């Protein structure tokens, strides 16, 4: 076996892949072959490094060099300079945004300093298509340990003591869920991995599946051992072709090694995993809906009880856990419940992966201990707000969550604090909004999503959310009435109280939390017909500047509704009551005399 002294890790996550990281990989490989270095230099494609903003990423070990935005044409220089001559290619190094000086060692990057990677520990470190690399990083060791040393109940106790809670939404105790499923007697039980990551703007599950598929297979087998199931199913979005491909490879490699299939580690335990594909329905993240979808039916939720632990897939006891939850299991077994529960806050243990996106400098995937403050996440790890704008809010928990504002910046983030602030952990999407975002429009955006994704089974969700959307739409086009705000509040509470499943019960959250935190913006839209961010086009007003208008009549002639008045060589006026905001006048004016403003103009037409 050849001994490598240099390792080039090329990110092959979806983000970097989209910016041609595969070409970077091929060029580097060709260059290494050409220089005859293939015995000493190893090039692998890894999962996501999390630093998606500056992809494609190339990391070089052992010296932790972190190159960003690498182009295929940079390959030769990297091999010649860095690998052969040992000189770093400074122009490709990540530069500290404050000092602008290049950072030589990735551990010094503020993006990574505050992070603690547990669930993502192997993402970006191994080749996900090679089981040997996973095994070198302890894959399947935890499975071996429980099969040979523990009873199912002892294993469940470890998970319970660790305090691990479901990472997909509500945060139910994982150990307890396993115990409940284990207690139900049945000849056939199922372990289901929920990889139907539907929250727009969250992509941690996909990154884990793409970067470290074996950890999920191993954790599912451990769960199967605990609850007495020998069949596992992964319900994965069809929109994740790369994750599907890597899972398939991982399953077949694990079978080949005897780590999956009949009598694993020569024990009496057999376990097999198959894939089931989603087909694009957000509601399928709800466990009963997911189970119906796996059975080949419409993904509609059903009443609980019975819980899946009693009657799930094909009517058998089923344990459904999310990808990130599973990713924590093997490391808890290996390092112990005490180690895990020493991280985090009183009621929320361990770490949480967040997908940072929106108006933030470092878009990407991060993992921090529970209890990290929003300020640390946004300003230290995230590098602050894009283009030096002012922070306004961060939306967490996707369409089921709410927004946190400036006053929450120093709150330690965990399940309880997010719920107290009117939001939720959800899957961990964090969308950062700045002063240019209109909070009413953001609420409308989420409602639009919910209206499209509501399965239609129960009335409050199907019709209530539609009415919520219409009311919000009215407000954003300047037709809001004072009573609309009260109506929104009432409707929200009815939908919350009476919807069948988690989707409907949480769907009014974006409205409620923006009402709570940004009531003044709703008031401005309704009473002053003003949108301070300028996002709502209908609430922008075309005005003619007295200084710049020379009275050429060009705009008057082009106006389709004859809203412009004024004689030749006199300053023109726009009648706001008639103006339809088509913008034709502004396009026509050669003197830049027509502007958009977000305050209703005091003087209208003088005729």
């Amino acid at each position, binding site marked *: 076996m050849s001994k490598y002294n240099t390792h080039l890790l090329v990110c092959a996550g979806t983000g970097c892949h*989209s910016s041609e990281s595969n070409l970077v990989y091929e060029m580097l490989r060709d260059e290494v072959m050409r220089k005859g270095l293939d015995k000493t230099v190893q090039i692998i494609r890894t999962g996501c490094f999390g630093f998606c903003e500056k992809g494609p990423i190339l990391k070089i070990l052992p010296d932790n060099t972190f190159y960003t935005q690498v182009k295929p044409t940079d390959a030769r220089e990297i091999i010649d300079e860095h690998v052969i001559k040992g000189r770093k290619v400074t122009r490709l190094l990540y530069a500290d945004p404050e000092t602008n000086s290049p950072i030589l060692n990735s551990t010094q990057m503020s993006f990574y300093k505050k992070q603690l990677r547990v669930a993502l520990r192997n993402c970006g470190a191994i080749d996900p298509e090679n089981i040997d690399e996973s095994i070198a990083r302890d894959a399947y060791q935890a499975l071996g340990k429980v099969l040979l040393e523990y009873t199912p109940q002892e294993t469940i106790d470890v998970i319970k003591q660790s305090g691990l809670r479901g990472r997909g939404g509500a945060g139910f105790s994982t150990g307890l869920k396993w115990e409940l499923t284990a207690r139900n007697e049945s000849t056939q039980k199922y372990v289901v991995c929920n990889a139907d990551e539907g929250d727009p703007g969250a992509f941690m599950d996909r990154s884990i599946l793409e970067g470290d598929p074996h950890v999920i297979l191993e954790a599912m087998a451990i769960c199967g051992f605990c609850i007495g199931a020998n069949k596992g199913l992964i319900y994965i979005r069809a929109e994740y072709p790369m994750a599907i491909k890597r899972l398939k490879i991982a399953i077949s490699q694990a079978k080949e090694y005897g780590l999956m299939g009949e009598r694993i580690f020569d024990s009496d335990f057999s376990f097999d995993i198959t894939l089931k594909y989603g*087909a694009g329905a957000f509601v399928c993240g709800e466990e009963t809906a997911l189970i119906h979808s796996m059975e080949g*039916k419409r993904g509609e939720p059903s009443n609980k009880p019975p819980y899946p632990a009693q009657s799930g897939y094909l009517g058998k006891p089923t344990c459904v856990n999310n990808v990130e939850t599973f990713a924590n299991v093997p490391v808890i077994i290996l390092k112990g419940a005490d180690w895990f529960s020493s991280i985090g806050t009183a009621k929320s243990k361990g770490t949480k992966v967040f997908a940072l996106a*929106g108006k933030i400098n470092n*878009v990407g995937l991060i993992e921090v201990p529970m209890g990290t403050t929003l300020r640390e996440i946004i300003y230290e790890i995230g590098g602050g707000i894009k283009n030096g704008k002012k922070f306004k809010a961060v939306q967490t928990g996707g369409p089921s969550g709410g927004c946190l504002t400036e006053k929450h910046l120093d709150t330690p983030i965990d399940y309880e604090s997010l719920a107290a602030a009117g939001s939720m952990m959800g899957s961990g999407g964090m969308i950062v*909004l700045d002063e240019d975002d209109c909070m009413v429009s953001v609420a409308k955006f989420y409602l639009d999503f919910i209206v499209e994704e509501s399965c239609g089974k129960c009335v409050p969700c199907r019709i209530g959310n539609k009415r919520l959307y219409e009311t919000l739409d009215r407000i954003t086009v300047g037709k809001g009435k004072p009573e609309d705000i009260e109506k929104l509040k009432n409707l929200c509470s009815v939908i919350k109280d009476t919807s069948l499943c988690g989707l409907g019960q949480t769907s009014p959250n974006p409205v409620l939390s923006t009402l709570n935190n940004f009531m003044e913006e709703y008031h401005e839209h309704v009473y002053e017909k003003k949108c301070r961010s300028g996002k709502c086009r209908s609430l922008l007003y075309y005005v003619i500047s007295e200084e710049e208008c020379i009275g050429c009549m060009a705009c008057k002639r082009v106006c389709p509704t004859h809203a412009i008045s004024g004689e030749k060589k006199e300053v023109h006026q726009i009648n706001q009551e008639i103006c339809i905001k088509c913008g034709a006048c502004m396009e026509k004016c050669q003197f830049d005399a027509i502007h958009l403003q977000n305050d209703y103009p005091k003087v209208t037409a003088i005729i």
Partner: protein
Amino acid sequence: MSQKLNIAPEVFAYMEHVTGTDGVAVRVNLSKEKIEKINQICNSFNNDAGELINVLHETQHAFGYLPAEVQDVIAHNLHLSVAQVYAVVTFYSFFSMIPKGEHPISICTGTACYVRGAEKVLEEFKKELQLKVGETSADGKFSINCLRCVGACGLAPVVLVGEKVYGRVSPDGVKAIIGEYKK
């Protein structure tokens, strides 16, 4: 769904292929090859009704879309009513009963892309191609669809044409993207 169609005599000859256990032939206006292909897909999943979604995935992959006639054949093979198949096809956004364009354009309207201006990009595509979301152009070249998050949030706003990803798309860049495929 299974309407009375004007069926060519040669199609009648293949009716046996889609005769269900109830002995009633379905009236389908599909060529023998297509029916065989569907039968083959259904067989590969043991004609198991629980595998309906996987069957639909494979069939859509083979034909590009799932017209009513195709659903008829699937329903028969899996011993489901046509309504059950139709219910599933229309429930999931991934399945389509309209053929997509030769160059399907998908605009990501996930939250990250939304806050970075995906709406304006979508408007520009609609204006430029004179199409609504979900429509296919008359010449069959382009179709517009929205999708929720491809996970390339660092490149927001993101547009996909077929499999190719375009990142950081601005409304001004829309014409150039369409131009690449307009030859």
